[in-house]
């Protein structure tokens, strides 16, 4: 047997899991449920949002959360695929980590262009 490079995605997975466990419920509530309830409409208006996301610190934090979320999800979905009986692990890894890379890059581009 030989030492594996799985440490890298695992750290991203673990860090992501930790961050998400604190922030995810409230984020989903704020951006996904509150608007439907008519809450926080001011905060989610185009103007406030642009101003808010325009802040570099906010960009950085959002980027961090989104990157970790992508990699957390990608890694865990890789395990899921295995657990559901899909044994083409390398292919699964390439696809999922590829998607995570796309997600990370898109988030970066979007944030920079705001």
């Amino acid at each position, binding site marked *: 047997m*030989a*030492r*594996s490079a799985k440490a*890298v995605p695992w750290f991203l997975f673990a860090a992501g899991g930790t961050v998400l466990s604190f922030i995810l419920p409230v984020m989903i509530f704020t951006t996904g449920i509150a608007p439907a309830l008519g809450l926080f409409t001011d905060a989610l208006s185009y103007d406030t949002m642009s101003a808010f996301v325009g802040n570099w610190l906010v960009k950085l934090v959002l980027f961090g959360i989104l990157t970790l979320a992508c990699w957390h999800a990608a890694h865990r979905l890789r395990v899921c695929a295995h657990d559901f009986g899909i044994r083409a692990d390398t292919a699964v890894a390439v696809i999922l980590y590829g998607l995570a890379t796309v997600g990370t890059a898109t988030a970066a581009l979007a944030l920079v262009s705001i």
Partner: protein
Amino acid sequence: MSERTIELEVLRYRPEQDQEPFFQTYKVPCEEEWVVLDALNYVKEEMDRTLSYRWSCHMFVCGSCGMMIDGEPKLACKAFLKDYPTGKIRVEPLSNFPIERDLVVVLDDFVEKLESVKPYIIPKEERTVEQGEYLQTPAQLKAFKQYTLCINCLCCYAVCPQYGLDESFVGPAALALAHRYNMDSRDLGRAARDDVVAAAEGIWHCSFVGACSQVCPKDVDPAGAIQQAKFAHGIDYLTSFLPGGKR
């Protein structure tokens, strides 16, 4: 004497006769205080000499008598009849292992794995007897003590789906044992164990199902040990790329 009749449904498999396992039911007159192992011993002595199973200590320390009792991996000497009020108990050999015969499973794979993790002190420098003991404070002892308590009963392997699905996985008890030595203040062998422990088949194969720790009769918490090991070996891996890191 308070007696009670238990219906013991035992999975039988005699390789020389049977194509596949089948259940055989024994009606066993039992004492209230008995454990499942006592009931099996009764069957063996009074009803059916052909039933085979392993046991020795009868005090949950030798690890011989792990078996599936009503679907849960348990020590037969620690499974008290009073906890089975229906009076019907189903006994099967440990899951995830090939059945050698009746309740006896083939352990070769586990034994190889245990040996593979280098479960012995790899000291920085050998110490002679004249130099006396390594000093080790109670706090340093505490850091690994829990992981020394494993009796190799294999209940954890029987419930770990990752091992069941893919037996190349080194598995909970062997990895917890590696962690035990890695955490010992006398040991410096983590790098030497890296090859097996930090392989894809090692700690990284564990998806933290956590079932192993739920069934462990000795509270070893292999699941915790493995996650801690992921962290430690993971840091080793990352730092090995730093200037001066050992690869």
